[in-house]
Each structure stands twice: as C-alpha cells, then as structure tokens.
C-alpha cells in the first residue's frame, strides 16, 4: 500500500536529564508512532535540551503524537515547525492501520 503522509517536524524542549531520550523514543515505539528523523542538541539553558523530531503522520494522529508526548513530565513544550508544502511519499507498508 502506498500512502501519502505529510512529514511534520516537531521541536520539543525537554529536561536535560539522563533517560530523557529513552522516554521519548520509548513513547514513539510503544504507541506505534514512526520517527523519521531525530536530532538532539543543547539550548542556551543547560538544564533544557532541544529535540527536533520528524514524524510522518496527519491530522488526528499528529494530535495524538503531540498529546502523548506532552504527557511525559520531562517534556516542557512542543512546537510544530513544519516547513511549508513539503509532501513526502511513503512507499512502506502502513503499519499503523
């Protein structure tokens, strides 16, 4: 099955603490959300790190990803910073259905 899903880029500020990457990665894996890209870096505030996460989901699923991420106590804020009109074509089977 070929599906067309928009890649969304989320900018996620997290507490800079051991295990925070595992929390975020674990959430994506157990909720069957696909991470396409993931970057972690520092911010001006050394107690806060920034994750930039690329996810290929739409509408309702995107809301779920954000709502579930937001439940992590270590997640401080989530911003959808998706660039305009960047359509990605996914030729992989759609495991989420």
């Amino acid at each position, binding site marked *: 099955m070929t599906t067309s899903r928009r890649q969304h880029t989320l900018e996620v500020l*997290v507490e800079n603490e051991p295990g925070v990457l595992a929390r975020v990665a*674990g959430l994506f894996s157990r909720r069957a959300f696909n991470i396409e890209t993931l970057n972690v870096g520092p911010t001006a505030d050394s107690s806060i790190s920034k994750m930039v996460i690329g996810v290929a989901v739409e509408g309702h699923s995107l809301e779920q990803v954000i709502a*579930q991420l937001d439940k992590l*106590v270590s997640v401080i804020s989530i911003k959808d910073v998706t660039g305009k009109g960047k359509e990605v074509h996914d030729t992989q089977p759609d495991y989420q259905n």
Partner: protein
Amino acid sequence: MAHIPTANGTAMTGATSLVKSLEAADVEVMFGLPGGAILPAYDPIFDSSIRHILVRHEQGAGHAATGYAQVTGRAGVCIATSGPGATNLVTPLMDAAMDSVPLIAITGQVPSAAIGTDAFQEADIRGITMPFTKHNYLVTNPDEIPGVIAEAFHIATTGRPGPVLVDIAKDALQKMTTFNWPTSIKLAGYNPKTTPDAQAITDAAALIAQSSKPVFYVGGGVIKANAHKELRQLVELLVAPVVTTLMARGAFPDSHPLHMGMPGMHGTVAAVTALQKADLLITLGARFDDRVTGKLSTFAPNAKILHADIDPAEIGKNRHADVAVVGDVRETISALIPALKAALAKNQPDLSTWMRQMNSLKSTYPLGYDQPDDGSLSPQHVIQRLGQISGTDTIFTAGVGQHQMWASQFISYEHPRTWLNSGGAGTMGYGVPAAMGAKVGAPDATVWAIDGDGCFQMTNQELVTCALNNIPIKVAIINNESLGMVRQWQTLFYEGRYSNTNLESKRVPNFPMLAESMGCVGLSCERPEDLDKTIEKAMSINDQPVVVDFRVHRDAMVWPMVAAGTSNDEIMIARATAPDWDSQEL
C-alpha cells in the same frame, strides 16, 4: 505540603531523609519487603510513625497499596529492594497505570558506582517501568530525596492519577545530607488542567439539549474525582439513561431507575444497546476501551460524542469527540449543571420515547442465570447472596475471570469505592492483596475478596500477612476447578478442547486447610442449602481472616457476551441466542 516538617534543615542520612519525606507527605502506611539495596531505609522505618506492613511477596505490596489507594483516594505506597524485589512490582505498576491509581513505589538500587556493571541484584527498574509509570526517578544524590518524593506524590495524585516509581541508589541512602522539604513544587513539563473552558461547557450543554437519545457513559474517572453526587444531580436534571463501566461500578447507584447497568463485553443488553442506539454519548471520565466499544468501527454508530476527561490525550484517541471538555470531571459536571439548566430552559428535548425503549430493554433482558440441573452450587447465586447478605457498605475486590464478571453483575453497588478490580490490566492475583490494602484503608468496613480458584493460587500468601497484622479480610473462592474464563472461550471458540484450563482444585489444594495453615479460618460450602449459613458464619468472624471454598458448578458461563473483536450489535444473551430485536421498538 501544607506544613513544614520540624526536621527541616537537620543533618541526617539519605535513608532518614527518605522516611522524613514520606512522613512529610502524610503517609500513614506502606507495604513492603526489605533487601540489601533498600536496607538502609529500613533502619529509620523501624522508628517511624508510618505503619510498615511486611508482605510475603512484593507483588502483594503493590496491589495492597493500590487497594488502599482505591478505597481512600490517597496515594498508596509500596517499597522493595533492587533487582527481583523491584521487578516483582512491575505487574502492580502496570496495573495501576491502566486503572489510573495513585501508587508510589520506592525501590533500592545498587550503589551508584556499580550501576551499569551487572552488579548483584541490579535491574534497570527505571528503564523497565518507563512505559507504565506516569513518571519515574533514579536518585543518586541524597540531597534530592525530599524534592523527588514531594514531586512523586504531586504527580501521582494530581491530574489523571497514576503510578510513580522512585529508585534510590544505596549510597544515596547511606550518605549524609541536610533534610529540606520543599515549600512548593514547580515542574515545567507538568501542569494538569483541572478547570474546564467555559466555552466547552456551553458547547457541551447545547449538544446535550439538542439530543433526543442521550446516554451517560460513566467511567472510573468519576470515582477518582469524587464526582458521584454531582453526577447524580446532572443525570436527574436531564433524566436520561446511565451506564457505568467496570471501573465505574458504584459511581451511580445500581438501584437507581435510570441505571441501565454495565456496558461492554459482559454488559447488560440495555447498557450495550443504549450506547449503540444513542445519538449522544455524554462521556465522563471514560476512555472508549475496547472491552466497552467492541469493534470500534461499529460502536455507537449514530452518536455524537461529548468527551469529558482530565487527560487531553484520551480525547480523540479511540473515537473522535464532537465536543471535548478537558478538566477535572467533578469541576466539569458542576459547571455543566447550571449550563444545562439554562440550555434546557430554551429547549427541553422530549426523551420519553427513548426512555420507554430503554426501560423496555431493561425489563425484558435483566441479568440472569440458570441453576445447575444436578443440584450443585451456582457461582452466580453464591455471589448474589454474598452481596445481599453482606450489604451495600461492604467493599468487594475481585480477581480476574468469570467470578470477576459475575461479581460486577450480580452485586448491587450503591456507593463509590466499594468495588475494586483490575480493569485495564486484568491482573489475576489482584483480589487478595487489594482486599488487604482496602481493609487497612477502611478498617471498619467488611471487605470481601471474591476470587477465582486460579487467581487465589497466585497471591494467597498475603493471607499470612493479613493474619499476622490483624487485617481480617474475607475471601470467597469461587472454585470451579478451572481457569474458568479461558475455559469459557474454549467452549465457545475452540470446540470444547480444554487445553490446560483444568486446575483440579477440588482435589488439590485443600483450600480450607491451606487457609488454616496461614492463620485464617477455613470454611467450605458445596450445597445450595448450606450457602446462607456459611456466609453468615464467615460474616460472624471478625478477628481473623476467613476463607470460604465455594465449590461451584464448573460449566456456568458469563452472559451476556460480545465476543472479542465483534460488534456490540452482536451481543448474545446465551449461547447462540441474540436478543429478540424484532419485538423491541428501537
């Protein structure tokens, strides 16, 4: 958080700081079992005002803390050592996450220098429990202990309640620190929204006033939020049917004429059909679990959804919400009552046809069961009499299986927090330890664990704990000598091939003897004519735990049933028997 402990600013070990922190968090009881890594904490526990109940298995500690929490509404606390002690808490933590229970687990960890070396009894319990704790911690610096404990209680008990684990390295317990209980808690990433938006309330009231077939779909959140009184006011304002899920039994009185019963896989015909035929579900603290919805794509096909929940991630997770109200459900209902009054004043829908249809279903398809032909004991009858004789102030817990479903069906629940079970996780073995915790939380109440012969063999060791600590619970083993619920599925879906479900528990173990050996009174009942007097005998014993082996017919099945993965429209009231839909005006 209200008071500043006198110990503030004093030098002490991390272990003492932990115990002082638990005292500052107003903990009155904890359930646990020591071992090397947590041992430093057990020394100050010896002197603490907090009652520590020594369990026989850490799983028992976890479920006991859950039972305590479910009955009192406070956080339950369990404590264990590293490695296997901590992993024995995994099931109760997962159970508490599924049923939104405020549970605090404290575990010892190997010394910080040894972490990551596969040290003796090292397990990454923080990593293991990430998927099913609301949050968890690994503490290696003793100065952080009071702050972390304060945060843990705050997180566990506010917003949507849930389990929090605090893993503390042994050296952090041993080192010296200065105790400093925080005066306030600030968590940048945690800010549960409790007060609903005014606009959402207005929209919700308007949606209700426009509907002609509304149903109150009530979940466990209503009990968690202590919103049962407000719920009743709201229901009586609209005069519409109510269903209470497995986690919400007792949130609305079973005796109330508007109560249609429990929905879901083993729900009543009236409750299941109410959801299927509704044009609006007024969803309060419920989460569209698959055991309620059946096949999701055919669930309540004509209904709009009003979804009120404290957890924003539940909105739209399984079913799109037409109007979402995020907030504490008690605040939500309180705000909804005047808003609905105003909306109804403008437009009072006529619900009389709908109510007539629902009442007709309710009276045509009451819950029922057949007495066995051979004169043996019927499990449903045993459970029904337990409820009737023990009365509506009794707290019931259950294991998981047929006996659990019958206990949810054939006992009339009139008050919140009188029905405790493992809903989301379906944890066999929950019943006895949860009853122990419930009795500790409500020592004046009669507490009955209705357990299966299979479940009982998973956690009965806590009866020793009960006997030695003056926790006189009562246990009714519904002994059908089978893993009955699994056997029922084999009867229905595997041509009666009973692979590994025969427990032979009318031969071994001898339950009354087992009970006696653990310091309990052991009773047995096999004939219907002995039923009432056996229950009365058990009711008369209040200084010791009592275990009754009710030896029941093994072939009884739980009905109605919506088979897993099928539509609620395919509800069966007995084997191959659907309700007579043609005779119903729907």
